[in-house]
């Protein structure tokens, strides 16, 4: 599963007029961190707080033309101005893509970039040979859940407290998040479990979620 070039990414994922994916360069990192801090101040705690640390990019994120790494960060611009980032992670052994985050400047939230990006992730995943895509959705607002459901993602369950958020100024709590996924392979390539190998709890929840 190799990352596409930024040119290839632009052909796989359509954005609204005026918006463009940029190639992440090392020189972008400091201004990007400063911008994310303004766009999404809640991110200072929790699993995505790494996007505010320079060493996170230098140690974990792929820069085009350098050695492959598992996390990709794609800056998004509008008429030349940086207005957001999209980031995902590949899991090569599972052939999976994890949609980690999309952060957009408040002034551009009406452009529905998340919807375009969700559709595009599927094209990207297929081009990379992924078979499974997943993402976590905040329960602070319903928009991401709706966008994932409209894009054909299936709700698989909830993580009760996997991540932390600043729920009010200075108050950090663990939060529930919804887990959504989409399969990119035909359903006959997935083995359904034998109910005899499931506990009663497991079977009851499985029947509720996958009775179709």
């Amino acid at each position, binding site marked *: 599963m190799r990352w596409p070039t930024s040119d290839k990414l632009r052909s796989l994922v359509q954005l609204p007029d005026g918006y463009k994916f940029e190639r992440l360069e090392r020189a972008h990192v400091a201004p990007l961190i400063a911008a994310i801090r303004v766009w999404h101040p809640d991110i200072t705690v929790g699993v995505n707080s790494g996007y505010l640390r320079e060493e996170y990019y230098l140690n974990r994120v792929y820069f085009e033309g350098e050695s492959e790494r598992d996390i990709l960060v794609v800056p998004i611009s509008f008429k030349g101005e940086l207005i957001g980032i999209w980031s995902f992670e590949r899991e090569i052994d599972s052939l999976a893509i994890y949609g980690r985050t999309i952060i957009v400047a408040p002034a551009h939230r009406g452009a529905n970039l998340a919807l375009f990006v969700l559709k595009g992730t599927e094209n990207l995943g297929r081009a990379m040979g992924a078979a499974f895509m997943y993402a976590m959705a905040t329960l602070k607002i319903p928009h991401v859940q709706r966008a994932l*459901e409209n894009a054909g993602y299936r709700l698989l369950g*909830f*993580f*009760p*407290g996997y991540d932390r958020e600043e729920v009010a100024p200075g108050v950090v709590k*663990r939060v529930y998040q919804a887990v959504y996924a989409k*399969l990119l392979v035909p359903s006959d390539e997935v*083995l359904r479990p034998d109910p005899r*190998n499931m506990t009663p709890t*497991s079977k009851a929840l499985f029947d509720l979620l996958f009775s179709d």
Partner: protein
Amino acid sequence: MLVFYDGKKMKWPGIDQLSVMAPLPEGYRYEWLKRSDIPALVKAIARWHPDIAVGGGSCYLREDFYFENVFLEGEQEKNILVGLFKRGDEFAGMWSWEQEPDALSLYGRLIIVAPEHRSAKLASKVMPLAELAGRAMGAEFLFALATLKIPHMQHALETAGWQLIGFTSGYDREEVAPGLVKRVFEGVYTKVLVPEEELARPDPNNLTPRGRALFEVLFPHSAAVPQTTH
């Protein structure tokens, strides 16, 4: 109380503390993986659990995975840990955890016990150990995926008080018959290590109808009172 958390960094516990937290049956002991153990461990895992050759766990059959990603005894801290069950000089099994310091969480990645040592019930020690070590490290949330090929891991997690919160529908791959690889479902189990009041409950108005229905099944007492606008 043992503490391996300084408020900023989660540190793996010392091997001596493990036997205090969850003593093993007589004759068995814990060890952290050493660099010199890696080739023999890879061979042992391939023999104990040949199905692991495809899918998310296949990295445990590659020596470079350990060199690049795993904390090795006496070396620099890394986010993935491999523990060994040993009896004399023999490997009796292994388990692996991954810490996510930004989320203060611990992920139970894998447990494999050698077939000839399965009657010692070594795997059942790892669930309470994860909770004790996790708390000492400052972890607030534990999670693990359980195979649905056999019920043992589901039973063990449920008995240890972990909650089933959903399933992955094809996240991983397994060799389900010789030469036949399929994607598989796995159970997702979690355990929250903080008091209820440290968990922010969602406003049901912020969930989609589908989300709200499932949330009420999984957490019947956890939905917050809907917020009203005045």
